[in-house]
């Protein structure tokens, strides 16, 4: 193909989701006078921040051609453990760091199961998902944990210069992920593995090490989200995060990342997360019945996957 045509193709792939987002926002602006207000936009970005941070990890995983179903359970477990430590009198920083380490550890389990035991990602992370949910229920005895103290609320509910803290954290994490994927060797290797794992291995890339780091990052980010969520609700819910993995996968796919790996961008994922968040927010503002909301969300996801298939 000519270079010009290829450039055009890449442009469409990149711009498609953004175009969808802009049109969606446009439609909502026309239909609701409440949508395009600074307040509501801050509100939406804060609402999407948890899913968006999980989706960063999910993007890395999906770029390698894998999948991580355990993120929702990791959210519940790390939130509970951090909350439990805080209630037990541990320092804020210690509790948060231990919570994040638990997330990373579960990610490491995923990575080891996939690279060493050679269990397919879907099954390996399904196992972790179930076990982590079980651990959460054991740890919390099935009851929500509360009473973490006021200082903990800053992470999920605070503001810096009028901007919600989770939004700032989300932006930082996206920026870091962007740099890793664009400018860093790790990023190039991730794309290479997703493109063709065997070829990547033969060309001298330590694919197992890369895959391991990707799942650890996925677990770490999910764990961090879990802590933010516990802070936002000022309570750690043992049932938190159910089906979060699906929202994250949806955001990644809506953002134009291919489920078969190797193709996709971190910016696309942000747009995907925004589309889902704005869809939820807009349907709420327009008072659409919650039953229709799920129908709409399902159709949008199906359309995105269909688009992904057509682009190939």
């Amino acid at each position, binding site marked *: *193909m000519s270079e010009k045509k290829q450039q055009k193709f890449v442009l469409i792939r990149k711009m498609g989701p953004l175009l969808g987002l802009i049109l969606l926002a446009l439609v909502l602006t026309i239909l609701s006078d409440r949508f395009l*207000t600074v307040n509501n936009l801050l509100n939406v970005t804060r609402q999407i921040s948890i899913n968006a941070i999980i989706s960063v990890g999910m993007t890395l995983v999906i770029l390698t051609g894998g999948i991580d179903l355990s993120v929702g359970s990791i959210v519940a477990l790390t939130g509970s453990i951090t909350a439990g430590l805080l209630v037990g009198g541990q320092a804020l920083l210690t509790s948060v760091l231990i919570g994040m380490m638990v997330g990373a550890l579960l990610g490491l389990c995923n990575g080891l199961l996939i690279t060493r035991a050679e269990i397919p990602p879907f099954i390996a992370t399904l196992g972790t998902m179930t076990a982590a949910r079980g651990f959460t229920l054991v740890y919390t005895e099935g009851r*929500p944990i509360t009473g973490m103290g006021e200082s903990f*609320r800053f992470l999920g509910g605070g503001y810096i210069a009028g901007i919600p803290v989770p939004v700032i954290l989300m932006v930082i994490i996206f920026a870091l992920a962007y740099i890793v994927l664009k400018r860093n060797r790790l990023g190039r290797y991730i794309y290479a593995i997703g493109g063709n794992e065997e070829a990547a291995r033969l060309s001298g890339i330590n694919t197992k090490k890369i895959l391991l780091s990707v799942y650890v990052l996925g677990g770490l980010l999910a764990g961090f989200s879990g802590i933010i969520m516990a802070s*936002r609700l*000022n309570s750690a819910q043992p049932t938190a995060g159910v089906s979060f993995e699906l929202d994250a996968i949806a955001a990644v796919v809506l953002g134009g990342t291919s489920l078969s790996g190797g193709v996709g961008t971190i910016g696309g994922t942000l747009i995907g997360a925004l589309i889902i968040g704005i869809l*939820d*927010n807009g349907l709420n503002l327009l008072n659409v019945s919650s039953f229709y909301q799920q129908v*709409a969300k399902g159709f949008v996801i199906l359309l995105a996957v269909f*688009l992904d298939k057509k682009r190939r």
Partner: protein
Amino acid sequence: MFQKMSKKSLWLILLLVVFSVSTFLTGCGSTKQEPAAKKTVIGLSISTLNNPFFVDLRDGAKAAADANGMELVVMDAQDDASKQLANIENLIQQKVSIIIINPVDSKAIVPAIEAANKANIPVITVDRSAAGGQVVSAIASDNIAGGKMAGQFIVDKLGGKGKIVELEGIPGSSAANDRGKGFNEAVKAAAGLTVVAKQPADFDRAKGMKVMENILQANPEINAVFAHNDEMALGAVEAITAAKRTGITVVGFDATADAIKAVNDGTLAATVAQKPKDMGKVAIETAKKVIAKEAVAATIPVALELVVKK
């Protein structure tokens, strides 16, 4: 070739948008036809509409809102505390006059109530209460009295002697705490009764069945079951029937249509009737008073009654 494909992608994106628009429009259809005059808008955030009890509550509220010429915006949190927070934030963005909340979790709802407080939107809770924030009025059945009612019924039915199972609701929810408290007060008063198993089944019928199946396995002798709601009670009835066990008195709570039918069929011994429709109605009437700046009571109990076979 790629040119063609990219056109296709564009068409698909367009389709996506058209679809979204059509969904919005069908969703808005009802409101669009109403006169443009500014109506009072009340927000109602419900824990889940996947439970007939809360559907009744919504219906009661909707009927009362219609009768008073007010618009009711209903949001379904699907039993997810973080989704409920998002729903309420979105109600605040809509600048509704008042928010009626039926919390998923008494403690996790506090940040949402504080957000409404900050936006100067009054909050009323209904059915379940909140552990913090400023709530103008909490409307709920007297669950402790209801639990006691159910407990006393079992005490009388068993003649003060026997083995009882308690199926608990979502741990930490005020309904589960209060119903359990009332029930245990009544049962403790009768020396011959022992609670042999006490397990949470999260107000869910499938879980109620599963938990009851396991309890039946573990306990060869059970004389009565008290479930914190009808869904779990009916699940327990299924488990008991499947295990071919007889002579077990099952008592539920809520008096949903299914449960009343089961009481009349004789499979369920009794259920405590909360009145979800009345609760919805009282919530709207209270909201109306709050908007009119009239004084309202901090807690408003809604009456209960024991439903047995006629």
